[in-house]
């Protein structure tokens, strides 16, 4: 079976704090199990949304 690829990380929400990078640590309350459940759901959402592909951006000098 062909590899479907992998989600490496998810950065939740947006950071309004103009001084440093804020990360949501609420998931530490529920641990790896909850994230193991959420990640495939996000994967499924991505697959559904890939019906409408978005042109990727790549830095011009890369």
């Amino acid at each position, binding site marked *: 079976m062909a590899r479907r690829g992998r989600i490496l990380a998810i950065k939740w929400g947006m950071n309004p704090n103009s*001084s440093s990078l804020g990360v949501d640590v609420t998931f530490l309350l529920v641990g790896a199990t909850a994230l193991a459940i959420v990640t495939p759901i996000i994967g499924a959402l991505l697959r559904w*949304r890939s019906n409408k592909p978005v042109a990727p951006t790549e830095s011009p000098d890369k």
Partner: protein
Amino acid sequence: MTLLGAARELVGAVRARIAAARPMKRVRLEKFGAILQLAVPRALIFVDRTMARRMARIDGDPAVWRGREGGLGDHVLSAPLEAHLQLTNKCGAGCVGCYTGASPQGASNEWGLVEWKRAIDALADAGVFHLALGGGESAVLPWLGELATYARERGLVPNLTTSGLEGLDGLIGIADRFGQINVSLDGLHATYAAVRGFDGFARADAAIRRLRAVKREVGINVVVTRHNFAELDKIFAYASERRLSEVELLRFKPSGRGASAYKAMRCTSEQHESFLPTILAAAKRHRVRVKVDCSYTPMLVHHRPDRDLLAELCVYGCTGGDFLIGAKPDGRITACSFAAPPPELVQLGKRPNVTELASYWDQPGAFGAFRTWRDAAEPCSSCEYHSLCRGGCKVVSAHVRGDASAPDPECPRVRAIEGQQ
């Protein structure tokens, strides 16, 4: 039509509805694969090349994928995820620990709307996803709404931090243009005054109520000091009572006026060591989402959480000059908002401003010590969390040790090891 056929049709219709209503906003290719921006849920998803290829329907090998497929964090990103723009240094609040040293006069040579629009053009062209707008007090700027609209038009999501003490009437009218607005609230009632040096709690609270009445995505930023640490649970209770979307906790930085207030305000070692269980208990008790700033990573890993879980949650330490950049009111680029502009590069002959991000980003030596964390000495080099933590807060290291690349002196592990020597 058979039952199975009807079910398939229903599933197909639901899929089409979701895809049409909530599309993926953007895909940015990276050496490890790509970053996918989702509007709902609001998230950046980091995926490997195989998944990126499927999601963005990529044929062939883009230039950025030539070479080995590394992991997230193995290389500097192709551009920051977010840019922190200090639009002005004007602010009349006069907080004793203000990290920018803001004043009613502001800074010299502050940029205006035209220059910041050019900056947004440069950031959009580079592939930046989010803006965090701050000051000083940016809410007083008459063109803030126009700038936020322009950012949206260029595909960037503007977010805002405000004290809530000035410019509120104007902000209420443009609140819908921001992804998230957080109000700085460093304590309740008398604690607010103890931390900030004046009694502004009632006004900040009134601002929070008014903003929350017109917008759901409103939270608070709390700079944690030895004076408000014991009150954190009450602050979470307050956030729950006001139905705020998040509490974001920030470590006190020795920057601006905060440099002289640092010794008196910074948390004690005992408070830092109990930080994680304290905030998680408060978040659980009051059912409020909790965010922490990048400088808290040494205090998180002190409790030895699952390393893979941290990586999956994108919990990194100092990512200045990589995941994020800052810009001063005159446009000069910085690794983060607390840091001074990086040293001048010989090859460029000057310190760059934010419109020159693309030409500066890949220069050898760009962002100085913020990108040399991989060369760390002991005790960081033997720490199993080092690739996530990246040596802790470089602004604290620079202030306390005179060397931004030195280990964070407030890291519990660093303190324990150095205490034995």
